[in-house]
């Protein structure tokens, strides 16, 4: 079975790219932050490593887990084939977990040089702002490697194991357990709400320290809402669907029907949009509130640290989530080759399919932006209350507009471009493969 796993990797590398990319970028980020712990144990270094690394850890673990389960689920047909050829559940599980482990190790190894460079950049940033002594030499050692390899491998193997239990567990292949997912979502949302309340109560008056809990609140909430993506998508479709149907003609009708029957697959596309919008909006506005609140106040000296840090961390995380968004959408769309071909054989033109996909993008983007915006409120509202004394930030909405536009553009570009590419060549070739 391990042999089959390795053969799969060599034979169909395309199916594993999505997982590889998210594991690779995730490991690089983790290594960068962890390498600061290798470098020294001054307070600035440790704060940067734990704060930045902590946020990354959560997001990276979630990203790796969700891309991996997406790719395993989309290979359900291959699993079913092996099963009918006599492979037992445990054998299939070994195959899926073996693949995941191999990808995680390869991705982490490839991430070492990138993590090393990023870590150096972080350190020089800390030196430039005078938070770390200019004489400190950069070290990339056991902690960086251990965290990078360890988290990626652990995340991948755990996700593969859990998904494999569902995909390969029983012959019927009843792949979803919505109850478990919903319970997880509620737990994450509760954790988020808890951090929000802490921010507004315990951290009120603690100044810049409130950023810690407020930032976490948004991330937990974003993950919770991302897990609820199928439900959110159905809700949005129920409301917006009639409009899409009325304006979009056949393409609109197909898009709406598609959402109902494929809400789980499309939810995979909603998740990264929620994360991107949530994390970016939450942190940018939190920093805005902080900057205004700090004007003319006497600050603890590490306020400066945290501000630089916040922008760097937000930048890195936003970039990571953006790449993950594009990555997930490309993978999810490319796998619809057969479905698109079947539509074409039934008489759909390329134009009609592009229209259908674009309307799906509208539904996905609305859902994702909505979820992300709600998640961002978990950060902004309590932080505003704690730091500025009012719930609604008196900040301009243009940053939010930029973030939303970016999310929509990335979603649309990745999906439509991939669809266009997938529609090349005759439809008959696509159903043979």
């Amino acid at each position, binding site marked *: 079975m391990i042999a089959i796993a390795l053969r799969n990797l060599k034979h169909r590398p395309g199916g594993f790219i999505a997982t590889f990319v998210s594991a690779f970028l995730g490991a690089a980020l983790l290594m960068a932050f962890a390498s600061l712990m290798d470098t020294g144990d001054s307070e600035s270094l440790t704060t940067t490593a734990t704060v930045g690394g902590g946020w990354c850890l959560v997001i990276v673990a979630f990203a790796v887990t969700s891309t991996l389960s997406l790719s395993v689920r989309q290979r359900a047909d291959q699993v079913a084939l092996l099963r009918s050829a006599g492979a037992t559940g445990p054998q299939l599980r070994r195959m899926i977990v073996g693949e995941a482990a191999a990808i995680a190790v390869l991705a982490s190894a490839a991430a070492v040089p990138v993590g090393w460079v990023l870590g150096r950049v972080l350190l020089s940033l800390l030196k430039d702002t005078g938070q770390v002594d200019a004489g400190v030499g950069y070290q990339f050692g056991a902690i960086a490697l251990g965290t990078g390899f360890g988290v990626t491998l652990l995340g991948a193997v755990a996700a593969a194991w859990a998904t494999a239990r569902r995909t390969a567990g029983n012959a019927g292949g009843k792949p979803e357990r919505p109850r478990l997912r919903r319970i997880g979502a509620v737990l994450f949302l509760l954790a988020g709400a808890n951090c929000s309340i802490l921010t507004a109560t315990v951290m009120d008056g603690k100044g810049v320290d409130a950023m810690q809990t407020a930032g976490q609140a948004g991330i937990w909430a974003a993950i919770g809402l991302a897990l609820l993506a199928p439900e959110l998508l159905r809700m949005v479709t129920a409301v917006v669907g009639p409009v899409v149907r009325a304006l979009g*003609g*056949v393409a609109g*009708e197909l898009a709406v*029907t*598609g959402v109902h*029957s*494929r809400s789980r697959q499309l939810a995979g596309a909603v998740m990264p949009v929620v994360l991107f919008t949530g994390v970016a909006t939450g942190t940018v506005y939190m920093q805005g509130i902080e900057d205004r609140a700090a004007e003319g106040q006497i600050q603890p000296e590490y306020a400066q640290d945290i501000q630089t840090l916040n922008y760097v961390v937000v930048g890195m995380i936003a970039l990571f989530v953006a790449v993950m968004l594009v990555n997930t959408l490309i993978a999810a769309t490319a796998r619809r080759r057969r*479905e698109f071909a*079947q*539509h*074409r*054989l*039934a*008489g*759909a*033109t*390329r*134009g*009609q399919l592009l229209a259908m996909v674009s309307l799906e993008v509208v539904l996905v983007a609305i859902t994702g932006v909505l979820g992300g915006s709600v998640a961002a409120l978990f950060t902004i509202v309590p932080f505003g209350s704690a730091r500025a004394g009012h719930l609604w930030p008196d900040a301009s909405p243009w940053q939010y507009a930029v973030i939303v536009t970016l999310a929509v553009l990335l979603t649309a570009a990745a999906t439509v471009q991939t669809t266009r590419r997938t529609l090349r060549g*005759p*439809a*008959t*070739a696509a*159903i043979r493969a």
Partner: protein
Amino acid sequence: MNDAVRVESLYKTYDNGVTALDGVSAAFASGTFTAVMGPSGSGKSTLLQCAAGLDEPTAGRVFIGGTELTATKDTARTKFRRGRVGFVFQDYNLLPSLTVEQNVLLPLRLAGKRRKDPKAILGRLGLGDRTHELPERLSGGQRQRVAVARALVTEPAVIFADEPTGALDMRSAREVLTLLRAVVHEFGRTVVMVTHDPVAAAHADSVLFLADGRLAGSLARPTAEAVAERLAHLGDLTTRIAA
């Protein structure tokens, strides 16, 4: 009698260099049921797909009801095809996310035509009580009947069927074949069907034989025995050529 489908010197060479069609010319008269037979790899599927406008021949011309299909670009060809040509595949190719009724009506909706009630046709195919089922809940024979209904819904001049009974048991196969015969003899449509089964071919009005991408004769009023015998010869022939 006018021709529903006419192909003139069709050539098809795939990207990998395989020549699947090597100069095929044939005409299928309106209101006839023709079976296309030949050894595996002789180019039957390629011929059907090129004739139906699903694929482009490397050279040669295809006419459907007197209109040249090969002169048009992809989108125009799709629009033309979905009104005039029906296609039935061995593996059905129904959309798994659409119900039986939605699948059957799909070509009409894509063509922007008024929907009609598919009850009559589905009822006739014995699927009247399954209209809101998803394809995955149907047997192979039932799925193939849905596929035939879908191919008929736009009232096309010609229906191509590539091994429509290849995945079916004898009884389901006979049902589908009877259906195709009725399509021709009751509704006056034209059917071109690829099959490997001499018994299936015997349902047709005539049989066209294909070997190595070329025509290798025809047979009118086929019986299963006569077809089997011709096929055996064809087999000998191709083995000899290959040797």
